[in-house]
């Protein structure tokens, strides 16, 4: 499958908020969340295309992180429905959302400081036999699986340039390394959809490039990626589709090249009645 193929999936999709997709993996309807008087999220309708990379952008405080929390059930919406692969998520606890195949990372990294990097990775593996208290006392029932998981974890660590830190405490990693670890750990789950909250914040450009290639590779293997990012170069580079949020609402949707010219987006970022086109990095 090539990138062109993926682009074709968006053929005929109108460039407007709430546009219907040909094969949505996630469908959101009327999701609302208010903190006191402040309405942080108020999304009428959103569909996320399967097997594509979708970027979620918007000014600070637009409600992106809150929206992520609502999608993964780390927070409960005041109203609205979310369907992942046709399954309504209202009564699904957060950990079940992950085992359904939708895995998220956090904007403020949650690396498990007092565990080694490799243990962090191994935690991501699903259906571990040794995670049952009964079998934990019988190592021969889970040793084999553990070895296979370890091999896969080591491959990912290699990819994310973390192999040399394998046996160190995760708490000793730098900020950027923690971002990487968290992303690699999410991939250990083998999700059908990953949701990354600012995955590349603080990662050096050379490594960023290699990771972007990796993410594209994941897409080509059929994984759906939804990520929040402030760096417009990166958005331009890897996303197939861009969703723009401001003040809790979806104000625009379209392919990356279209977003810079969208008046609503320009207004949202720079304040209303700003005439100059917004430099969102498309010409680099």
């Amino acid at each position, binding site marked *: 499958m090539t990138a062109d193929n993926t682009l074709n999936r968006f053929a005929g999709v109108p460039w407007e908020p709430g546009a219907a997709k040909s094969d949505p993996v996630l469908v959101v309807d009327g999701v609302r969340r208010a903190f006191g008087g402040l309405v942080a999220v108020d999304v009428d309708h959103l569909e996320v295309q399967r097997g594509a990379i979708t970027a979620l952008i918007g000014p600070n405080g637009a409600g992106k992180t809150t929206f992520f929390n609502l999608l993964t059930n780390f927070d409960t919406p005041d109203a609205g429905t979310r369907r992942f692969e046709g399954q309504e998520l209202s009564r699904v606890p957060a950990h079940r959302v992950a085992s359904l195949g939708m*895995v998220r990372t956090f904007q403020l990294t949650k690396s498990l400081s007092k565990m080694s990097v490799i243990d962090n990775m*191994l935690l991501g593996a699903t259906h571990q036999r040794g995670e049952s208290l009964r079998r934990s*006392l019988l*190592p021969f029932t889970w040793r084999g699986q553990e070895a296979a998981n370890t091999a896969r974890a080591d491959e990912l660590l290699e990819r994310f340039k973390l192999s040399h830190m394998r046996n160190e405490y995760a708490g000793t990693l730098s900020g950027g390394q923690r971002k990487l670890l968290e992303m690699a750990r999410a991939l*250990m789950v083998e999700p059908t959809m990953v949701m990354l909250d600012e995955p590349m914040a603080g990662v050096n450009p050379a490594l960023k490039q290699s990771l972007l290639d990796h993410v594209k590779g994941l897409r080509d293997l059929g994984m759906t990626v939804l990520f929040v990012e402030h760096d417009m170069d990166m958005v331009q580079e890897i996303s197939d589709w861009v969703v723009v949020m401001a003040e809790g609402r979806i104000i625009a949707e379209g392919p990356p090249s279209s977003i810079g010219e969208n008046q609503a987006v320009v207004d949202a970022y720079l304040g209303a009645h700003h005439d100059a086109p917004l430099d969102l990095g498309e010409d680099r």
Partner: protein
Amino acid sequence: MDWGAILENTIRGLIGEQFIYFALAAIGLNIHFGFTGLLNFGQAVFMAAGAYGLSMAVATLGLNFWLGLVLGIIVFPLILALIMGVPTLRLRSDYLAIVTIAASEMFRIIARSPSLDRWTGSSDGLTGFANTFYELSPFDRSQRYFFGIFIGNQMWVVLVGWVAVVLVSVGVWAVLRSPWGRVLRAIREDEDAARSLGKNAYWFKMQALILGGVIGALGGMLRAIGTQSAQPQNFITDVTFFAWVALILGGVAKVGGPILGAAILYGILSFTDILLRQMVEAGIISTSVMDGTQVGQVRFMLIGLGLVLLAAFRPQGILGSKEEMALDDR
């Protein structure tokens, strides 16, 4: 002053019955707090569950000793863990702390209430449930053993206790290095991270609460057997903190921590206790400063002070590493 008695008492503290009860309680707490991050301040109630499970089964209900064991080690702590865990384990850790302390207070009120005397024996507690245990003793009850420190029945309790401590520790060590233990540590570090990776944090915490509670109940049951009575006084709130001090002193999240901590703690307590008593008796401390009953209170002050100083200056305990503590990025 009788230095022989002082030495003997100190050794008893280091390896004797008290050490065993509290080592087990602290091992349970280590699973709760050390490995999972649960703030259980009601370990005494789990101990009481073991003690009363056995004694009520035998003395109140007239069941046999072995059924009593099952009730005390499995059924009672399980029910207790569910009652305390179901409402709180979804919430921030403080709530478990509050509910477990509240459970201790409830236990005190209920166990001492004269209106339930028929079941619990109220303040006097229950007796006469441990005969089967002592009938199995290979030791002669009129003999002294282990350099004359323990008489026959005590020796039997201490022996069984030590075997229990060793077996439980090995089991805990094995369980905690499995993937199950890895999930517990992840939950201790950051519950949301564990949940985002598909781990049912609530269920794992519940399992940990039950497992640690069962081990605590074993300690409490041995205490009831060793003293041949189940009394509310032996399981009041403050008893929990003896286990806490033992845990923090030895080293949190180290399998050997609670054992080392309980030994040192009871070594120190037994030593100061007998020393003070002898000093009061010998008139070195005048009764206007302290009388016999007040010596017991000094032990609690030491526990309180110990908790304060340990938490402030050496939260990693004797076996813990400073580096690991420094990773705490709260």
